[in-house]
């Protein structure tokens, strides 16, 4: 029973549900890294040499977490877990940027990273609880023939700039433009980010979460769904599906 002497307290942000969302089925993910490769191709992510990548300087916007737990021989592997920017509704990375390079898009309900405005204080990366932001340590070489496969829709970032997953915002805009020119609403499944497109197991599903009939909304209501670090109140837009409903550990 609610005590009616205490007025209902609700934060402003609780009203927003977001527009675009993703669901990742960890029970289906095979850890094949196709999404990582597709993301790198789509978003002009440079190749980082082995030594730097081993030191934690790889630039992938999506990483597949997979860890082993316990002492040999009682070793358990966790299931594969692709982690990218959660496009928080209440993003901790945004307010800490002194130059508004990390802002919230009202129209798409996404976290934007404005490359041109970034001065490289890297505060946003420290304040991201999901550790999904990456920093351009240098201007990376793209030897031939890699220099021929730039995606013209995506900015090439130079050294000293923070970047992160955009939910392939260039594809979202393309889909929206097409729908607008044909005078209709955007269809479910019309916009597919590179990672979802490349996923051979169809573990990644993308769509509108504000549409209750969309595939993503149905999947998110699946009893296996949970959000990463939900207790922080960041309102992530990605729903993970897993039988145990916990991050990481399998039995």
């Amino acid at each position, binding site marked *: 029973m609610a005590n009616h002497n205490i007025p209902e307290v609700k934060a402003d942000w609780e009203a927003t549900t977001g527009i675009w969302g993703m669901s990742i089925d960890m029970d289906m993910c095979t850890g094949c890294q196709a999404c990582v490769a597709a993301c790198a191709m789509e978003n002009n992510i440079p190749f980082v040499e082995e030594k*730097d990548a081993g*030191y*934690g*300087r*790889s630039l992938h916007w999506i*990483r597949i*977490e*997979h*860890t082993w737990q316990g002492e040999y021989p009682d070793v358990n592997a966790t299931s594969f877990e692709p*982690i990218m920017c959660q496009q928080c509704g209440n993003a*901790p990375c945004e*307010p*800490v*940027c*002194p*130059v*508004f390079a990390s802002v919230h898009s009202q129209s798409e309900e996404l976290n934007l990273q404005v490359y041109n*405005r*970034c*001065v*490289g*204080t*890297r*505060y946003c*990366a*420290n*304040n991201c*609880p*999901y*550790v999904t*932001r*990456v*920093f*351009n*340590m*240098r*201007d990376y070489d793209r030897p031939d023939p890699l220099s021929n496969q730039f995606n013209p829709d995506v900015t090439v970032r130079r*050294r*000293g*700039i*923070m970047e992160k997953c955009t939910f392939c915002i260039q594809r979202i805009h393309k889909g929206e433009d097409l729908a607008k020119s044909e005078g209709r609403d955007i269809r479910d499944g019309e916009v597919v980010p590179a990672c979802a497109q490349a996923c051979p197991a169809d573990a990644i599903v993308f769509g509108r979460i504000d549409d209750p009939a969309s595939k993503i909304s149905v999947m998110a209501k699946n009893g296996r769904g949970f959000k990463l*670090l939900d207790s*922080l109140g960041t309102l992530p837009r990605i729903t993970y599906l897993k039988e145990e409903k916990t991050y990481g550990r399998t039995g």
Partner: protein
Amino acid sequence: MAVLANAAPHAQPHSNSAEHDHEAHLREEHLMLDPRPRGEMNAMVMDSMHATGWKFWVIASILAVIVVICLGYYWGLMISEGMVVAGINRPIYWGIFLVNTVFWIGISHAGTFVSALLRVFKAEFRRPFTRAAELMTTFGLVQAGLSIFMHMGRVWLAFWLFPYPNERGLWPNFHSPLSWDFLAINTYLMSSTMYLFLPLIPDLAMARDRSTGWRKVLYRILALGFRGTESEWTHLRFAMNLFAFAILPVMFSVHTIVSWDFAAAMRPGWNSTIFGPYFVVGALQSGLSAVAMVLIVIRGNMKNMKYFIRPEHLDAIGKLMLIISMAWAYFFFNDYMVQWYGGDSWTKVLLKFHEEGPLGWMWMSMLILNVALPWLILWNKNWRRNPVILFTVGFLINIAMWFERYIIIPTSLSINRFPFTYQLYKPGVEVQLSIGTLALFILLYMLASRIIPLVPVWEVQEGQMAHSLRKFGKEHVVTVSDLE
């Protein structure tokens, strides 16, 4: 009252010699009871600026070479190559540059503390070394500012942090603790420079009156035509008083805001409400130790400074260091206790990593050098007054405070809520740039000591006027009269 020139403040004839010895001892002990004619003190201070041996220039040239190599070459390399030459990675996005920033802001705090707080409380021992401490504030802030610039990924766009709108009418983001940092450090740098300059004007006029050549030209310009008329003193006195009171909250705000860079973040170990005062006390801890070190160096190496800076001053600073060390231990324990008790599992991982991780030795030596060492040594008056011992303690405390910032920044950043990303931090070009900032600080201070009268002679004379010895029964007691 024959106080201005040369009188001993107690002119009675002495009946017995034991009493006389006691008075002589008191006079030897306290600068304020050992007045010399103003002209003599002026000459001593002028002499200390002129007497420059070849050793000074050798050290200065070595430092200058270090500055050029470390700040010129290596910083240039980092700007042109990118942060790849530094040691940062994911998740340790903040490294030694911010450790240095916090460290130098801490150093700069002691200058204001010594000069403003002790002025507000009329602590008389401050008089001969307020300026030496204020110079540390200004030059320390220069290093802090440089370290922030080094830390930025695109330093050539650093001016975007200035509060002005860009071509689309967008202003900086005042939600960000870094913007507060900009405002606070800017306010602090400007006000501490003005606070350094105001009491300096009469001394510059003094220097102007007794120098020739290029120094005459320089002091003439800097002294602004100050003569010492009643009205000039009135304005100056009011302004110095106001600055002493107003710069204290600014000083507290600066280091509190620096602590908010961490405390405002959503990270285990950082999100702590005690960080504000903890950082302020930490700043005083390293800053006061640095003041002690600087005074000991000045006293040992500059001509005539043994008259102005005496064991009593080392004693007083030593006591302050002991008190601040206790306060630091209190805040450290407070922070540790609450983090430990809070039960957050990631914080537990972090605390364990601090204590038992690869840098556990750093955590342990921080506690030993910051707490055990001063508590065991500084209670003893004779040890406090020994320059070698006090210098060593001050040096080790500064090492420990640097460790403290290192533990808070790169070491804590190793740990986050995603163990998959855990990394260790291996400093790269940060080492050279840290050496560069240290060399630049020492170099600036050395050069300034040739140009700026390091002892505020008029303040010393004012203090000597105000002090006298009184006898209560058989005891001689130092009394101070308030001149304002």
